[in-house]
């Protein structure tokens, strides 16, 4: 709240509490709408698209578009993360296999170069 208001603005404790109550109600309100949609479509999980749809349906059109873009970016980042983790798994497995091979080689006296 403070970030939106001028620096000399003050917010009463009760105003903050009222805002918190409003936010809780906002979440419940939008979730209810999203959940109804899932139920009608025989789906069990409420996802980000459902939230965006519910916001647009309930009159929060100005939020829906930026949130769709935000969701899209979030999904892209998650994909990247997942790909990196898989990539690291492959590298680690390869390294482990290589180390095993090196150990086996050494145990046969492969490093012994002295005459």
């Amino acid at each position: 709240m403070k970030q939106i208001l001028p620096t000399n603005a003050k917010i009463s404790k009760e105003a903050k509490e009222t805002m918190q109550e409003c936010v809780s109600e906002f979440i419940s309100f939008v979730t209810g709408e999203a959940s109804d949609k899932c139920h009608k479509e025989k789906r069990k999980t409420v996802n980000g698209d459902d939230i965006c749809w519910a916001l647009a349906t309930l009159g929060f059109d100005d939020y829906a578009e930026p949130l769709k873009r935000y969701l899209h970016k979030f999904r892209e980042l998650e994909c990247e993360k997942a790909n990196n983790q898989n990539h690291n798994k492959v590298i680690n497995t390869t390294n482990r296999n290589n180390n095993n091979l090196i150990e086996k080689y050494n145990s046969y006296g492969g490093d012994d170069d002295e005459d």
Partner: protein
Amino acid sequence: MRQAGAYSGILCGGISGRTGPHSLPLARIKKIMKKSGEDVKMISGEAPIVFSKACELFIEELTRRSWIIAIHGKRRTLHKDDVASAVVATDIFDFLVTLVSHNHGSALNNANNDGAVMEIQTLEYS
């Protein structure tokens, strides 16, 4: 039409437990979502994250509108009645009218202030 329920207050009690770059606690958002209805059984991981952003936008809008009312009353401190008046004066916040009317009796009196309502309408068209 969806009626405002008795789910307010769950987000109260501080904003501890912030996780990651999101400004609102995701676990608490998830808790409120689950309590909103019996049908809500499974929630994807991205849903609380989308909500965190949505709530930021919501708080921004409600705060701005409340501030206009405070300024109109020549005050620099935002009071709960300013928030209540902003709710009453904004169509999309209709679902909050019952909540603010129960908690703040003078909300309707403030909403009858034509000047404040005019200011809100100016915001709508800008």
